[in-house]
C-alpha cells in the first residue's frame, strides 16, 4: 500500500491509487483524472512539462485531505500528481474519493481537485506549436477562507 498523497514523475495508475482508499465499508468511489488536452487558449498544445515544489506539494495534498475529512468524515481521499513531461491524453493528476455513499464521494473528490488547483505548488509549462508558456492561475494561499468556500460551493452544487 503506497502513500495516498504523492507527486512524482511516474505515470499515474488509477487502479493502484483507487486501491489505496477503497475499503469494505465503501459503496462508492469517485475518481477525477486530469489529462493533458491538445488545445489551450487557441494554441495547439504538444505536451506539458509539470514542475513542482515536491515536499510542499505532498504536505499540501495531505492538508487538502484533512480539510475534506473535516467536511466529509466518511470519505477517504488520495491525490497523486505527476511531474515532468506529460503527453497529450496522459494523466497529470488523479483524485480518488471513496465513501459508503456516492454523495460524499462525489463531493469530496470535487472539493479536493478544486483545492489542488488553488493551492498545490505545481506549475504547467505548456509547449505548443510555435512556443512555450508558463501557465499561472491562482495565487496560492492556504489560509484564504474565501477560496476554500468557493471549493466547498463547487463541491456541493
Amino acid at each position, binding site marked *: 500500500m503506497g502513500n495516498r498523497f504523492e507527486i512524482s514523475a511516474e505515470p499515474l495508475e488509477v487502479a493502484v491509487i483507487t486501491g489505496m482508499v477503497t475499503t469494505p465499508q465503501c459503496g462508492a468511489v469517485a475518481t477525477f483524472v*486530469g489529462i493533458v488536452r491538445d488545445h489551450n487558449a487557441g494554441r495547439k498544445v504538444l505536451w506539458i512539462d*509539470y*514542475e*513542482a*515544489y515536491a*515536499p*510542499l*506539494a505532498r*504536505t*499540501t495534498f495531505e492538508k487538502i485531505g484533512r480539510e475534506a475529512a473535516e467536511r466529509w468524515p466518511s470519505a477517504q481521499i488520495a491525490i497523486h*500528481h505527476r511531474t515532468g513531461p506529460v503527453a497529450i491524453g496522459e494523466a*497529470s*493528476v488523479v483524485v480518488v474519493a471513496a465513501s459508503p455513499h456516492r454523495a460524499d464521494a462525489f463531493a469530496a473528490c470535487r472539493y479536493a*481537485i478544486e483545492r*489542488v*488547483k*488553488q*493551492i*498545490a*505548488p*505545481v*506549475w*504547467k*509549462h505548456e509547449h505548443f506549436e510555435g512556443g512555450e508558456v*508558463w*501557465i*499561472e*492561475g*491562482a*495565487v*496560492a*494561499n*492556504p*489560509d484564504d477562507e474565501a477560496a476554500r468556500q468557493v471549493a466547498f460551493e463547487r463541491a456541493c452544487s
Partner: protein
Amino acid sequence: MFVTVRLFARLRELAGASELQQELPDEANAKTAWQSLVRTCPALAEYEPLISCAVNEEYARLSTPLKHGDEVAFLPPVSGG
C-alpha cells in the same frame, strides 16, 4: 546570516537559478529576502503582488522571521491539475 532561496517556474527562469544562497541581516524576514532578490534580479519585481512564500517547506507569510540556514521559497501563481 545565510538562507537558501528556492525559485520555481517562471521565477526560476527570470532569475536564472533554481536555488541560491543569500546573505541577509539577522532580523530579516521573508519579505526582506524577496526584496534582496529583486535588487539582484529586477525582472522579478512584477511578481511582487502575486507571489506566495514558503519557509522550510511550509507555506508562510512574508512577515515570517528567518534564521540562519532557513530555506525560503518564492512561488508564482500555481497551475497544477
